[in-house]
């Protein structure tokens, strides 16, 4: 009984950590530019595919992850520079379509580069399951949760301590005021895209041994990340992390106790329920809208 529950919680925590990273990525970009980047899942895919194919051709794992990360950051900056920045004053719908276009485009490129098959990445430290109070756990799960934890703390420090982090925060509060005190708002947007691309890519690399990598892997991960971000309240970093964990754990519990076929539906049922009662998400601001 207890072991079973613990098992579900552990697997939920693992996948939830990836949703949390993706959700955090959505939040960072949303804060800097008020754009929901539907290509966030593609950053995850790039990280997973790059690390899987590079290690297969003999590149050491850390270097492979680093290259994947750099590649994703470059792609993020390009998307920001050539698509999002140019459509600065466009409507929400238009911006959504642009980033969806970017995600289709990136998936097309990825298919051309890597093909359509599943790619395998070996677990970072063996596959001998660890026994925890009767539940068993892949060592890779520890890598996933640990990496996500470290990254989340690092992002928190980045926003609290560094000048660039503070500039992003200032821009998210008031773009014009940020510009007036000399913040280069355009660079802030580019930096936020690069940062969330890096987050996504690392997430994709550490989760690859569990989920396998394929060019379509980013779609659901991205949508769940969006759910996590909205659940936590758009633009609320810790909220996105909490949202990701909630979605991941609820999904694992749903799959275990209700039906594995409806696993993917769980996240969306939760988000609908939350939005009905808390239209701004769990931690969103309750401010009034200015006319």
């Amino acid at each position, binding site marked *: 009984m207890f072991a079973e529950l613990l098992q579900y919680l552990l697997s939920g925590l693992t996948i939830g950590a990836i949703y949390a990273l993706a959700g955090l990525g959505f939040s960072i970009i949303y804060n800097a530019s008020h754009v929901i980047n539907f290509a966030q899942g593609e950053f995850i895919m790039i990280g997973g595919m790059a690390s899987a194919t590079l290690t297969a051709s003999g590149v050491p794992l850390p270097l492979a992850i680093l290259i994947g990360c750099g590649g994703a950051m470059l792609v993020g900056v390009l998307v920001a520079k050539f698509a999002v920045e140019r459509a600065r004053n466009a409507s929400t*719908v*238009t*911006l959504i379509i642009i980033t*969806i276009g*970017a995600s289709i*485009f990136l*998936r*097309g490129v990825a298919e051309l580069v890597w093909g359509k098959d599943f790619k395998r990445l070996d677990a970072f430290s063996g596959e001998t399951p660890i026994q925890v109070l009767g539940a068993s756990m892949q060592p890779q799960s520890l890598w996933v949760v640990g990496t996500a934890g470290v990254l989340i703390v690092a992002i928190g420090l980045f926003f609290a301590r560094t000048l660039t982090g503070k500039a992003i925060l200032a821009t998210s509060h008031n773009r014009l005021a940020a510009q007036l005190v000399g913040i280069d708002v355009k660079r802030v947007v580019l930096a936020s895209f690069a940062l969330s691309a890096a987050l996504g890519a690392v997430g994709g690399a550490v989760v690859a041994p569990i989920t396998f990598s394929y060019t379509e892997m980013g779609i659901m991960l991205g949508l769940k990340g969006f*759910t996590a971000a909205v659940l936590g309240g758009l633009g609320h970093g810790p909220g996105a992390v909490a949202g990701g964990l909630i979605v991941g754990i609820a999904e694992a519990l749903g799959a275990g106790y209700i039906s594995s076929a409806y696993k993917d539906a769980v996240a969306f049922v939760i988000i609908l329920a939350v*939005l009905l009662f808390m239209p701004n998400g769990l931690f969103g601001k309750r401010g009034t809208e200015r006319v």
Partner: protein
Amino acid sequence: MNALLHGRLTGLLALGAVIAILPAFLPNNFYLDIAILAGFNAVVCVGLNLLIGYAGQISLGHAGFFGIGAYASGVLVGTYGWPPVVALLAGAAFVGLLAFLVAKPILRLKGHYLAMATLGIGIIVSIVLRTESGLTGGPDGMMVEPFRIFGVELYGEKVWYWVVGVLLVGVVWLSLNLIDSPMGRALRAVHGSEVAAEVVGVDTARFKVLVFVLSAVFASVAGSLFAHYAGLITPAKADFFKSIELVTMVVFGGMASTFGAVVGAVVLTLLPQALTIFQDYQQIVLGGILMATMVFMPKGLLPTLAALIPARRRA
């Protein structure tokens, strides 16, 4: 072009004329088939445009309503032996009711939150269709009986072409009338500023719900007829990508332009057919076109072209 945008009757006549003479230029059933698919998409897009273009409310889940209509026809006619017309109406009524029930709480949401909620509904619908395989055939889909009315079976591309053509003209006519009615003015007021609209006495909630229900019902009817035409339906017709495709058609053709929605549907239905020449590059080209259109003509194709014409005349 301007007449297309502003003259209601001229536009309708032009559309009717194009539909009437088009078959003469289509060499075989393959092209007729694409025209029919474009027509079905256009019907959904005209409804979706009322919601997105006029009322300014996004929906990333309309393929779900299309799917419910399609499966209602497939299941009720095939498994339970209902007459197709009754099944179509039942599907539309169910979708209307569902849309009505979710509309009020959902439409309180704005921007990205509304996008998320509608996306959620669409995805849940497609997962249900995929999973309840006893009823729907699961991921493989299900066969659908032909459409019979008064003992006559609708059969073949030629017949379906005219069915879709008439439906499209009817839907466009309805949409144009609606936009010119007090309700249309109310919707545009909602789009401009919801608060201002309420201050001048527009019951914004009521109109938003109404247009959401209406656009969902359009999608359901198109879905039902499509199911009978295609003879086979799969959950892919109801999934997230189909929803995105529909929104893209509306936005590409031109928001707040009924004929723009039609043009968007036609162009983006044809495009993948044309792109099969590029095979491996299909997604890249499609994604690239989406981005480029939105970046360089955020108002969409038809309004952008229309804006060019008078400017040149004045110059």
